[in-house]
């Protein structure tokens, strides 16, 4: 399949927008591996248990 110039431009714009999406300032789930990782990196951490993501 040949990609037209317009398609390429659209793909480039989409990937640029994707790259600009700010990452979340928190991790969701997998709390045990999260804590192991923070311990290895020597960073303090907080865990929010039972947090309501919908009303968050």
């Amino acid at each position, binding site marked *: 399949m040949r990609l037209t110039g317009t398609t390429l431009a659209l793909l480039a714009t989409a990937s640029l927008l994707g790259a600009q999406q700010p990452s979340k300032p928190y991790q969701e789930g997998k709390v045990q591996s999260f804590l192991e990782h923070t311990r290895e990196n020597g960073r*303090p951490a907080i865990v929010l248990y039972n947090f309501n993501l919908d009303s968050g």
Partner: protein
Amino acid sequence: MLPSKELRDLSKRVDICLSGKTVPKGCDIRFRQFFWLMVFDDRGELLTACRLSDRLTEERKMFGTTLPESLVSIVEKGLKAGPSLEQLERRYIAEHGSNEALDGLRKKIKAMEGVAQMRVAAFLARAAPSTADPALSRANGILMEAAACNRQVINHAAYAKLAKSIEGFVEDHPDHPSCGDLVKPLANVALKYAFDLPARCKVYAKTWTSMKTDSAKAVEGLRKLSQQLLVHCDAEVTRAATALRTMKPNAYGRIRLLARLGRAQETLDGLAATKTFGVMRPIHADWRKAAPAKLQEASKK
């Protein structure tokens, strides 16, 4: 709160995890239906824990802060809430189970609203060999286990485990003065949902007084312990009977008191008129077995 600038700024200093329904290891919590915050230091040790919704409300009322600002403030305070629980555990071992070190652990658990209570109960039993009085450390662990059982959603298995812990302690240390401290946790917590408390207590008393031991001190200790349990049981029976007299037929806790007093037919009638739900299923199943057995036993006499 989640999309806020404050949370983004906080995440530069502190890693944040929304754990869903998973509790971090060693952070057993009471009342799982609430929303909790747990704070760990840079070594991954537990500094504090709290019911976050209550604390957020307090902060907002006290300082007039926004929700994200309140969260940041609570976390900042939490990060200064040392020593960590692990540090206190290390201190307990280093000080061979001193009263001060035990007090430190108890205060920490209280400050954390009971979070990690079961973990500390297990720790006290595990650390017993490193302490000056291993039996005392084990007894303190059982007392903490009882406090944890008493402050959580009804858990049939946890009550049964507590009863086993107490039975094991008396068997291993029949002459230890801490045996007497375990009478109330046995009758009031481990046997809280037991059918026919007087009958259960009599079985314990008989077991203890007939326990084989070469020590005269242990024989005397077990005799006194049995007596103490029966006296406490009598007081509990009076309390339950008095409470029952003032209760309406459909009052909450009425069937439990009927079962506790061993009133077999009334317990069965109460069960027939009640829908058994979730946590009560194994307890009601016990009562459904024990009550007819008692009626059958009575009919033979």
